[in-house]
């Protein structure tokens, strides 16, 4: 399942309720998950908040495509991808990627693949609100690029 949400979400509650609802007890032997959370510091600046923009339509389609590609490459039972958009505060969860499989290799590798592809290709853009320092007033700054996680 792929979900884009403008409302704060609790990844642990989402994981728990999705796992219960998917009804695959006995089939899965592994669940690998990644939770990305907003920090209050970036490139030496204090970050007070963040706006996450996306491309409604293309973002969902692209995430579905990533999940499909992972399903073709690994033996996966279920996937859950949730991504936040809109106004965020430090410590807010940004993204959850979870993969269920029979064995850990598929869950580990597929979740990594989905996460790295999401970071490098899914159409989302972050704009940070930086705290004012002695010299500068509060300002907004687009994050320019994601670095590779590999």
């Amino acid at each position: 399942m792929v979900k884009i949400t403008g409302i704060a979400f609790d990844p642990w509650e989402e994981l728990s309720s999705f796992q219960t609802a998917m009804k695959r007890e006995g089939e899965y032997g592994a669940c690998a998950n990644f939770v990305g959370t907003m920090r209050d510091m970036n490139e030496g600046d204090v970050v007070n908040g963040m706006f996450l923009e996306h491309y409604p339509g293309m973002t969902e389609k692209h995430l579905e495509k990533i999940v499909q590609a992972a399903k073709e490459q690994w033996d996966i039972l279920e996937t859950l991808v949730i991504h936040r958009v809109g106004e965020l505060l430090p410590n807010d969860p940004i993204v959850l990627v979870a993969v269920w499989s029979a064995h850990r290799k598929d869950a580990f590798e597929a979740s990594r693949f989905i996460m790295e592809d999401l970071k490098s290709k899914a159409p989302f853009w972050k704009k940070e609100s930086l705290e004012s320092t002695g010299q500068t007033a509060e300002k907004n700054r687009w994050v320019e690029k994601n670095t590779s996680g590999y």
Partner: protein
Amino acid sequence: MTQANDQMYEEAMQIKVLYFASLKELFGRSEEQLSAEGVSTVDDVWKLVSKGYDVSHQVLYSINQEYAQADALVKAGDEVAFFPPVTGG
């Protein structure tokens, strides 16, 4: 041809162009309609809409919500988008 038909015909000859993030701010708009006449590739559209602007970063192209190379062809009715490198996750 009636006026309604004229309008439908004109709309059918248009390309919908979307901008996101810093490009949307630079251009001061999030979308516009362009005539498909005389436009062949997505890069032709980009050259047309970015004329006179100083775009210092890499720009990614999509056609109908799929990533596209600069030489990909566009036609009337397509949805084209331009945006900076993505920074989600």
